């Protein structure tokens, strides 16, 4: 268990940080700089993704009316601010693609993974700093290609973020030509970027641990990233192959997924969802990791059932490889396949019950305070529970016959991903902002931001469960073509107003972020009195992270140890050391 990183770490420490725009920023190999670049990229893409959501929501509430503030978009993308059907399909496609692959992954894996993992394991940097740099620029290129698809003739991809063939396989079906190719290229590059990132995270978390940092002393966030990296690396191969095959179908006329040329559209769905379900946990688990870091710090208690959480995570990850056909119950696969996949799907509830209850149990008997990071963490937990339980309905093959591809599905996955990515990610931003930038964020603005965000989110998506139960199909440009959907207009109008409040509710965050960056209270090393290693160095940490290589002496969540003078015991402080306690 001894760290191999010690020698390298000290050699990094001997050098001063490279400075200037090129060496200090564009080609910097410092994981903290790269992490912040991932953060910027993901927040920028979040704005683009949010804009697509705004257009979608407006169209659903008041179809074919001019969207306020959007008249500047030229024809034929929009007409005097009105969204046409082709563009609506592009919007839902881009919203899903951007939010999952270009917001959730860069935000949780790229920004927090990069910034925190070397610090948390006590390393000077990532195992492969140059690969880390390359993976960021690869993602940047992928993002640029994806956004470029808005501007090519035929417009952005419009076959859904799942890109079902043959709609995606031939321009004659969707009317989208280069937009779709760019989408595939962007995805392939995005996967390449996160394959590099995943290898880096795995290697760093396994090989670069400080002396004394055994696997079961790792902060749970690192465990979540480890599991996520393994899931991603094992699942992404088939989808990369699928993406290349689809690109060949589109460009040189192969027929992997086109029946007229001897192919099979269901093959794409198998390849896509074999990746797609593990991918859900690739995003979910790092979000959980943030919540798991924050709960013990503010409850001043050890996390409840550390090992139970680790084993449950691994079990859920393993199960995620044998559930993919639950996306395909009514796709035309052999009907006898459905029940086995339904059973594995519903079984996932067992490890998740353990994880969720462990988080809740951590609060019991605590002495909790609720500054903004803790509010977001507990808010994420409370919101996720509804996302979790509604998965049971969809996991049941019989009920899915009715609910498949309805707004019930849309509401369900927003209730799982919004808490983990957005609420969890923001909890992390408020919590680690002092470490990243050396200053505290404003509490009042933070609390205002939290309450608007959580109330508005629930007002957007809770009604959509009801819409789904009325049979409302998703991805419908104008629902009111259908008589049975006409009464649902007030639901959409309510959700749209709530969504606009949700967007406006982010203004306090933006103000807080920039104000705190320059004028926030100085944070000091360890403002939250936390135990994990990232707090054992200055804020922001120097090049090389630690002035003196840390040695780990104990578990990560030793709060309120009986007999201790202080209610926290940092991992790096030796027994009898300066901050150590005098036990009886």
């Amino acid at each position, binding site marked *: 268990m001894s760290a191999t990183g010690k020698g390298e770490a000290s050699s990094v420490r001997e050098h001063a940080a490279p400075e200037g725009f090129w060496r200090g920023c564009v080609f910097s190999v410092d994981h903290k700089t790269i992490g912040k670049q991932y953060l910027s990229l993901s927040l920028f893409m979040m704005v683009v993704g949010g804009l697509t959501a705004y257009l979608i929501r407006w169209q659903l509430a008041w179809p074919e009316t001019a969207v306020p503030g959007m008249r500047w978009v030229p024809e034929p993308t929009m007409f005097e601010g009105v969204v046409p*059907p*082709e563009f609506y399909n592009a919007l*839902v496609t881009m919203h899903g693609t951007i939010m999952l692959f270009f917001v959730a992954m860069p935000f949780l894996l790229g920004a927090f993974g990069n910034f925190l993992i070397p610090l948390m394991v006590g390393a000077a940097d990532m195992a492969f700093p140059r690969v880390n740099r390359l993976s960021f620029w690869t993602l940047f290129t992928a993002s640029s290609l994806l956004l470029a698809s808005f501007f090519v003739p035929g417009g952005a991809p419009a*076959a859904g973020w799942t890109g*079902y063939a*043959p709609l995606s396989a031939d321009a004659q*079906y*969707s*009317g989208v030509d280069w937009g779709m190719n760019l989408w595939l290229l962007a995805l392939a590059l995005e996967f390449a970027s996160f394959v590099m990132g995943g290898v880096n995270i795995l290697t760093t978390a396994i090989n670069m641990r400080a002396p004394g940092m055994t696997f079961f002393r790792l902060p749970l966030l690192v465990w979540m990233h480890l599991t996520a990296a393994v899931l991603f690396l094992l699942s992404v191969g088939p989808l990369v192959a699928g993406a290349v095959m689809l690109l060949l179908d589109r460009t040189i006329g192969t027929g992997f997924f086109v029946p*007229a040329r001897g192919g099979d*559209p269901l093959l794409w769905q198998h390849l896509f969802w074999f990746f797609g379900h593990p991918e859900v946990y690739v995003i979910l688990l790092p979000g959980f990791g943030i919540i798991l870091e924050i709960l013990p710090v503010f*409850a*001043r*208690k*050890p996390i409840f*059932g*550390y090992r*139970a959480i680790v084993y449950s995570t691994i079990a859920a990850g393993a199960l995620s490889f044998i559930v993919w056909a639950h996306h395909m119950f*009514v*796709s*035309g696969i052999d*009907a006898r396949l*459905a*029940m086995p996949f*339904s059973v594995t799907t*519903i079984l996932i509830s*067992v*490890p998740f*019950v353990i994880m969720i209850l462990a988080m*809740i*149990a951590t*609060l019991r*008997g605590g*002495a*909790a305070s609720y500054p903004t990071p803790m509010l977001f963490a507990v808010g994420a*937990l*409370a919101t996720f529970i*509804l996302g979790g339980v*509604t998965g*049971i*309905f969809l996991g*049941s*093959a*019989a*009920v899915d*016959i*009715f609910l498949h591809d309805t707004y019930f599905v849309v509401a369900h996955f927003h209730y799982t991903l919004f808490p983990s990515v957005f609420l969890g990610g923001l909890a992390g931003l408020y919590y680690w902002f002092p470490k990243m930038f050396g200053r505290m964020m404003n509490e009042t603005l933070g609390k205002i931001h939290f309450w608007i965000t959580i109330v508005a989110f629930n007002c957007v998506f809770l009604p959509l469960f009801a819409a789904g*139960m*009325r*049979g409302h*199909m998703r*991805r*419908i*440009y104008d629902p009111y*073509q*259908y008589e*049975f959907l006409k009464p649902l207009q007030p639901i959409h109008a309510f959700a749209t107003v709530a969504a606009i409040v949700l967007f406006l509710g982010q203004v306090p965050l933006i103000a807080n972020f920039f104000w705190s960056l320059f004028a926030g209270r100085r944070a000091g090393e360890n403002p939250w009195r936390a135990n994990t290693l990232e707090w054992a160095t200055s804020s922001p940490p120097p090049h090389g992270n630690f002035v003196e290589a840390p040695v780990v002496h104990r578990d990560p969540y030793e709060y*309120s*140890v009986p007999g201790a003078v202080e*209610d926290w015991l940092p991992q790096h402080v030796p027994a009898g050391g300066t901050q150590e306690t005098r036990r009886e």
Partner: protein
Amino acid sequence: MQKWFPENVSTFGGDIDSVFTLIYYIVGFWFLLTEGVLLYFVLRYRKRAGQPAKYVRGDRWSELAWLLVPAAIVLALDVGIEAAGGPVWARVKEQSPAGGVEVWVTGKQFNWDITYPGPDGHFETADDLTLLNEMHVPVGQNVHLVLRSKDVIHSFFLPHLRLKQDVLPGRSVTAWFNATKPGQYEIACAELCGFGHYNMRGVLTVHTTEDYGRWVQEHWPATTEASGATPAGS
């Protein structure tokens, strides 16, 4: 709960709704319990002067029981949910009761072709009757569908009958239903199929037995004379 659903007019729709309701009560109970406990802990265990947090690691079996016992109960309930849902799935998707009428449905961007065998009772003959976005069936009889697509994937969705089945190019997929109440019900496409997807709407008319006979008379009047004759084209 079930009142919020579209009115159910198929023989198996009630079964699907029952499974939904069963799950609703089970997960509703767990949802309220977990949120309630969470809220209680948040309110109860706040920081108070002179009251330190308890040092509980939750790694002893006696403590882990708080996680494992609920997990075991959830496992048992999962088994119950699947035991209730399995037969319903099998009834709708795996079994196909004998008898009734057969209708072919072909999806194409962005319409449903509904094909009847016509007077000779055989498909793919000259007297087949093909309607656009219009399906007519008798009440109380099994309707067997053969679903195909000419271009991309569509999904044949009858919300009031709780039937949804994707329609694939290059394959024939079968489905069935048995409507319990005469009336007009909408047919929707539930799988994104292109820019006109939102408008790929059809109407299912469920006739009383008499009405259906009359409708058949109107649309293939040759029925009486051709019923005993050899199928055309053979």
